[in-house]
């Protein structure tokens, strides 16, 4: 079965620190990868997505992610975090249409940014 792994469940950073959240996906098939963010009490919002092409993907709010095929990874980065980035971050893989285009999510990483 396809799976997505996120390495850290909790991350605490000070403002202005750099952020990197790890995400690995299991081997196989077309790769459609996403990072979603969930701010406290809110629904999921798309940060960025990778389908093909340039492996360095830029998203909203200064986030970016790099797809490294040889490592089956899609890590999320931000050079300088802000207090408002406190949220839970989910990596997800999109499955093919024959599988209903469903998303397989990682367990999530809770980021707390200290001001």
């Amino acid at each position, binding site marked *: 079965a396809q799976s997505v792994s996120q390495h850290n469940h909790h991350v605490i950073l000070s403002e202005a620190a750099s952020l990197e959240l790890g995400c690995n996906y299991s081997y196989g098939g077309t790769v459609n990868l996403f990072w979603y963010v969930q701010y406290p009490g809110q*629904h*999921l919002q798309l940060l960025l997505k990778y389908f093909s092409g340039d492996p360095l993907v830029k998203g909203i709010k200064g986030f970016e992610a790099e797809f490294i095929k040889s490592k089956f990874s899609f890590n999320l980065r931000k050079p300088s975090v802000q207090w408002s980035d406190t949220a839970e971050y989910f990596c997800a893989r999109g499955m093919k249409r024959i599988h*209903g285009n*469903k998303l397989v999510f990682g367990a*999530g990483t809770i980021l707390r940014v200290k001001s």
Partner: protein
Amino acid sequence: NAGVTQTPKFRVLKTGQSMTLLCAQDMNHEYMYWYRQDPGMGLRLIHYSVGEGTTAKGEVPDGYNVSRLKKQNFLLGLESAAPSQTSVYFCASIRRPTGSSYNEQFFGPGTRLTVL
């Protein structure tokens, strides 16, 4: 455009009670999904639908039923609620993909359900 809406926002049930969660979308999307979110487990797919009148099981379908009688609505039912079904439930929808493309899922605000 309201996007994806869910009702109710909160609900408390007693073990054995039944209820239905409603998801509605006004984007004319063909595909709809129900997920549950539990701490440390991410979102897990319960059931999904690729069109009006069709449904399919996801990763954790036991204890739930769904119906898609209208394109814009996707109902999730709990016939006999159990404490293990305490969770936050999210609905999502996408436009039908063409060829090998993949479309972004749009999520609703969630329903927080507690089963005592």
